């Protein structure tokens, strides 16, 4: 994966965050201002129309009662009382003569239908905008009532100006705010990014700084740190195992190679040649055996073999194994004693338990001096808390030998892959036997204990009898 250095990029998440923030801010500001604008202007328009409508009502009543002279009178009165100086009236006769009003002539673009119209009108030598409406009266008289709305136009302009300025300010604020958001975000991300970048480049000791406030970021940092701890533990394990693999495979390969080369150079007869080749084959078979054991351990540790779990009688399985090994023990002048119950129902992988027990018995026989004895026992321990289903009872399998045993330091390491105690170096074996037992016992949710037996070794396996499949993998 290419490592990317921090910088301003279009794809930057922090920049996107900033931009999203700005856009949201601008949109909400524009929405708010538009509402104010339309609200104000609309209210002003409504007032003008209302006052025109009130005027019109009075004038139409006057027209109905008093006719032309009454209306002329009323218009003059109204104009005289017009303090705001914004009222516009005009009354025209059927022949087009102007009878009353404060406009010099009938506006050119007036609509004769009774619609609201905004027209430019000439008043006092000034062209102003006016809101008008025309009423057709009986006998083709026409009445125009309007209001000069130049004041409203001024307010509108002022508001528009204010809006533009506000937009500018909002824009600046949005960009500034976006920048702040982006910086904050980048700081968080970069702390994580710097650490992971360092780790990618091989520095596994780096950890993300934890502020100690216990916020969400600390949670993330802690989780990542824990993950890193686990990864480095696993890596150490892998490193150790691959070193051991390289070393322990080298030995039989080196032997095979030496034998073949030696035979190729020095063998004088076909028989000697064959013997060397056969010996090399045996050594290569050893290599295969080690590979197979490693694969099996890895497979068991991955937990994929749970599918083969079934119920079987552990006691009879152990009895059969004891029968198989009893003959071997006898050949080594050892006694194999058993203490097994009649039945011991158990849920697990029978083939794997046989393998585990074979490994333990192989070891016991291999490391015991003649005339000793090996004991195999199994028993069901009562549950720690009686009648509690959670604490299913435990089955304890014990193999005790009186062989060379191990010192305490070796006991702790005995189930590691490829570990071989100093005193076992000269015996055949790969150092994988107990590692496989350990993996099998753990797969069944149990524990493997190795303890002293002055002299000798006690191998104890504790497994839950009613095996409940745990979610732990």
């Amino acid at each position, binding site marked *: 994966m290419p490592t990317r250095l921090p910088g301003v990029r279009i794809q930057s998440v922090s920049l996107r965050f900033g931009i999203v923030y700005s856009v949201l801010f601008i949109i909400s500001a524009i929405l708010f201002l538009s509402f104010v604008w339309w609200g104000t202007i609309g209210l002003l328009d409504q007032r003008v129309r209302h006052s025109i409508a009130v005027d019109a009502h009075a004038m139409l009543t006057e027209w109905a009662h008093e006719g032309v002279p009454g209306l002329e009178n009323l218009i003059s009165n109204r104009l005289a009382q017009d303090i705001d100086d914004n009222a516009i009236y005009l009354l025209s006769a059927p022949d087009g003569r102007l009878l009353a009003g404060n406009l010099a002539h009938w506006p050119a673009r007036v609509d004769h239908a009774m619609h609201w119209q905004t027209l430019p009108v000439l008043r006092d030598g000034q062209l102003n905008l006016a809101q008008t409406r025309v009423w057709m009266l009986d006998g083709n008289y026409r009445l125009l009532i309007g209001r000069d709305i130049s004041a409203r136009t001024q307010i509108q302009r002022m508001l528009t100006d204010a809006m533009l300025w506000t937009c500018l300010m909002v824009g600046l604020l949005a960009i500034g705010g976006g920048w702040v958001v982006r910086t904050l975000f980048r700081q968080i991300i970069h702390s994580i990014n710097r650490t992971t970048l360092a780790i990618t480049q091989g520095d596994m000791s780096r950890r993300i700084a934890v502020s100690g406030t216990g916020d969400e970021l600390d949670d993330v940092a802690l989780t990542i740190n824990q993950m890193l701890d686990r990864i480095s533990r696993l890596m150490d394990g892998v490193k150790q195992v691959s070193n051991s693999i390289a070393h322990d495979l080298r030995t039989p390969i080196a032997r095979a190679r030496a034998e073949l080369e030696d035979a190729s150079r020095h063998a004088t007869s076909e028989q000697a040649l064959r013997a060397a080749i056969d010996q090399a084959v045996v050594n290569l*078979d050893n290599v295969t*055996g080690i590979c197979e054991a490693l694969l099996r351990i890895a497979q068991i540790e991955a937990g994929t073999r749970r599918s083969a779990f079934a119920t079987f009688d552990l006691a009879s399985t152990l009895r059969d194994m004891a029968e*198989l090994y009893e003959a071997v023990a006898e050949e080594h002048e050892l006694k194999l004693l058993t203490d097994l119950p009649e039945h011991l129902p158990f849920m697990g992988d029978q083939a794997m338990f046989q393998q585990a027990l*074979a490994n333990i018995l192989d070891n016991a026989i*291999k490391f015991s001096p003649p005339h000793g004895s090996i004991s195999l026992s199994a028993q069901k321990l009562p549950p720690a808390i009686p009648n509690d289903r959670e604490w299913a009872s435990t089955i304890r399998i014990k193999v005790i030998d009186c062989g060379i045993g191990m010192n305490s330091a070796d006991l702790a390491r005995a189930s590691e892959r490829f570990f071989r105690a100093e005193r076992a170096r000269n015996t055949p074996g790969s150092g994988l036997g107990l590692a496989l037992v350990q993996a099998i016992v753990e797969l069944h949710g149990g524990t493997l204990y190795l303890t002293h037996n002055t002299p000798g070794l006690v191998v104890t396996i504790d497994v839950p009898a009613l095996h409940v499949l745990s979610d732990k993998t």
Partner: protein
Amino acid sequence: MRVLLIEDDQTVRNFVAKGLSEAGHLVEQAADGKQGFTLASQDKFDVIILDRMLPGGVEGLHLLETLRSEGNLTPVLLLSALADVDEKVAGLKAGGDDYVSKPFSFSELQARLEALVRRNRNEAQPLTKLSVGDLEIDLLSRSVRRGGQKIDLQPREFRLLEFLMRHTGQVVTRTMLLEGVWDYHFDPQTNVIDVHISRLRQKIDKPFDHALVHTIRNAGYMLQE
């Protein structure tokens, strides 16, 4: 017997073909699944040795399943680098009769091949008595006699002898015995099988003037007159 060998690795193929020819068998070879399938469906063979991972688009198990679905019942021995128990189970489920994982020793392969062909021939008639030379066992009363003299055997020793007698004149390997007599599928570090064979010899060979159980170097054991 006629053997069809389907294996893509030339070294392994030559090694197996040479060994089987030396043992007096007729070997046909195929380097990929297609060719192998054509040969298997055209000709009649006593046994087929089939590699699992094959080039040419026809994978071993697929080939086997197709053969079986066409009613071809030739015994098939699967040969594969896939050595997991699960893989073995998959191979046997697909219709394989035996499974040998690579790397393998030739004697193991040969012994299993011969056992397979023999089993295929013998399956028809159920036996109640087996005999080799002056040794005879009764499968119903589970009694053993040699030269008219009764021999007492433990149940497991009886099953070991029965297995050897069912494979008279054939090499049986230690793995075959562990699987066939004890039904164990693991690899013991110590010589458990040798010890049990030696115990059996004590009872059926030692008191008599000539031995019936023979050790075959680098391979296993054989019961023969």
